[in-house]
């Protein structure tokens, strides 16, 4: 087996990892700051894909249709996230985890039905623009050009989030709120508004991830449930609330999955869960998490 094929497999794993990162980063952010385990996160991701389809469908005669639909879908989801936070999520901040899970799982059921009502049960397809329709050749090995775009988006979101949390005043406030809500509140900063903003940001990223997923295959009901477990695995491995951890864990999961397909196809999915279980046993707070969050 030559190096170019190993490289191709690595790139496949990286693209899978970046897709997982896009989903899991919002999940991790919301949990890290708000202590809310949002089981419906992947459903927002799916809605992002459907909303992207709608925008694309309206503009499909134009070359920029997909490129404009992706940010529009993310912004739409962020607005939707604001409403959900104010109407529902805000009411369970002080409840215990099972109640939060019950609410967010109920949201999965309601949102899935909403999808059925709005978009029906037929699969939706977004056609790729010519720029990302054909393969690119890296060291002589073909690679889906759209996944180059996925990898770039993943890196951009990771960099953007890092910059936002580390370098901006709003980011500093969010990080401070993770450790002491009371102190932030005592400084006169309205915590509810911070939470609404963080939830909207998390859902924005979920919407962006869904929109980016749209042209990958067909958009269909049930996709959210297929991906949510892997997203949780990523967050557990990386450590709840750790952006760096989520990024590293996404790449690990993507690469483990990709290379196990090459060498041990039957065990690809099992390996991910074995890694997750091992991390939970050895380091319950994840690779980059803190013990207080475990």
């Amino acid at each position, binding site marked *: *087996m030559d190096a170019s*094929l190993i490289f*191709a*497999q690595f*790139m*496949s*794993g990286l*693209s*899978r990892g970046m*897709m997982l990162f896009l989903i899991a980063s919002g999940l991790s952010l919301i949990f890290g700051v708000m202590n809310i385990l949002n089981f419906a996160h992947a459903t927002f991701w799916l809605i992002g894909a459907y909303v992207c389809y709608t925008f694309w469908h309206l503009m499909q005669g134009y070359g920029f249709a997909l490129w404009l639909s992706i940010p529009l879908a993310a912004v739409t989801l962020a607005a939707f996230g604001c409403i959900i936070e104010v109407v529902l999520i805000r009411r369970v901040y002080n409840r215990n985890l099972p109640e939060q899970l019950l609410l967010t799982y109920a949201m999965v059921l309601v949102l*899935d039905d909403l999808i*059925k009502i709005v978009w*029906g*049960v*037929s*699969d939706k*397809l977004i*056609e*790729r623009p010519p720029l*990302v*329709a*054909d*393969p690119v050749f890296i060291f002589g*090995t*073909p*690679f*889906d*050009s*759209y*996944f180059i775009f996925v990898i770039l988006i993943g890196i951009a979101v990771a960099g953007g989030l890092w910059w936002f949390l580390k370098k901006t005043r709003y980011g500093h406030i969010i990080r401070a709120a993770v450790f002491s809500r009371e102190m932030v509140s005592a400084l006169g900063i309205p915590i509810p508004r911070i939470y609404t903003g963080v939830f909207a940001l998390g859902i924005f990223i979920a919407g962006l991830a869904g929109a980016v*997923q749209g042209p*990958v*295959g*067909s958009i*269909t*009901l*049930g*996709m959210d449930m*297929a*991906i949510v477990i892997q997203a949780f695995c990523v967050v557990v491995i990386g450590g709840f609330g750790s952006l760096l951890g989520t990024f590293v864990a996404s790449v690990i999961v993507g690469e483990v*999955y*990709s290379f196990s*397909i*090459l060498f041990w*196809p*039957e065990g*690809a*999915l099992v390996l991910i869960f074995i890694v997750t279980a091992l991390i939970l046993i050895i380091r319950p707070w994840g690779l980059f998490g803190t013990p207080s969050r475990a």
Partner: protein
Amino acid sequence: MKFKIIAVACALVLMGGFFHVDRAPAAETYNLGVDLARTGAGAFYSKDGIDAIKLAVKEINGNGGFLGKYPIKLFIRDSHTKPDVAVREAKDLILRDKVRTILASYSSACAVAIKPVAEEYKVLHIAAISNSEDITKVHFSPYTFSVVPNSYMQAKAVVLGVAGLAKKKGWKNYVTIASDYEWGRSTQNNTVELLKQAAPELKLKKEFWPRLGETQFTSYITAIMAQKPDFVIGSIASKDNVTWIKQAKAYGFFDKIPYPGSLISVSELMLQAKTLTRGLVGLCRAPFFAHMDVPMMANFVKNYRAMYHQYPSDWAVMEYDAVYALKQGIEKAKSIDSEKVKDALKGATINTTRGQLYFRDIDNQLSCSSYIGVVADDPKYPFPIYHDLVEVKGPDSWRPKAEILEARAKEK
């Protein structure tokens, strides 16, 4: 005064007649259950099937229902493409809705799970999309019928085509990719076994098993390309198939590696009309365009298009045939009693949109064909269809009776 009394008496008599009519027992309905996937991986195919069932019911009810006097009442449930849910819904359909027949199912795992439930309650069960041969081959239930070419028949059809191509092109090895569930496993196993018999010189290099519901096949695509096989055989269905084909195409996969005889149903032909690679050799189960010369098919296509503004997929064709198979069974039995209908359908010859076919008595499998062709544009349709279509007849492709008996003997 007398006139008033007579008038009131007449009015009372008329009212009595009116109320009498109103109180007459309503016509007995034939409760027909549908246990198909409205969500999950199977929703894409099942929607067309449900639409076709509704159309068939509308047509039959337009003539008074079964036997002209039993209007059909439909009860549609969502199996979520999960066997446990499918079984729960099947039981509910039987116990609460008192259905006499259940039309199912997208997933073979669901069909296999529903089969013993239907048998226990003596309710007819017709599989019209799911096609693992285990639905009718082993653990045989006289209440379960299949109107879809089963996985063995489809595999045999593929093998006949692929073995010929392998000889012609000098192919030596291949890999398989199949969805990791009942149908994928069953189809892949049958194909590999039959290929061993038909072309023993072909070597299977590796098997890939993406999970049902996979959204990203990139790692599978690069891993398959790393194997450098002479050809690939795939057993992937529904939305997974759409995703697989779309992603593989973006890698230039089909330009590099032949991918003959994998499932590309009319659903995929329609959905990927613009993007599907022309020249692919695909397999399907019930393409309407192969039988437009059959009046029942022509009529069905006309009515389906009028109702839903699109052409029917394989899944629509087969579910439509399932309802009409039931109708003909009831007419032959002259009764809606499931025991009698079951006996009437055993070995029966029926008219379908795919022509006149019969149920084999040993396994209640319809003698329906499999179809292999080359994806190509056609001026008659707004999507590609199959050209050079080869129809492999049911009796030429189904498992020999002796092997079925042997398999059943082993299970004891």
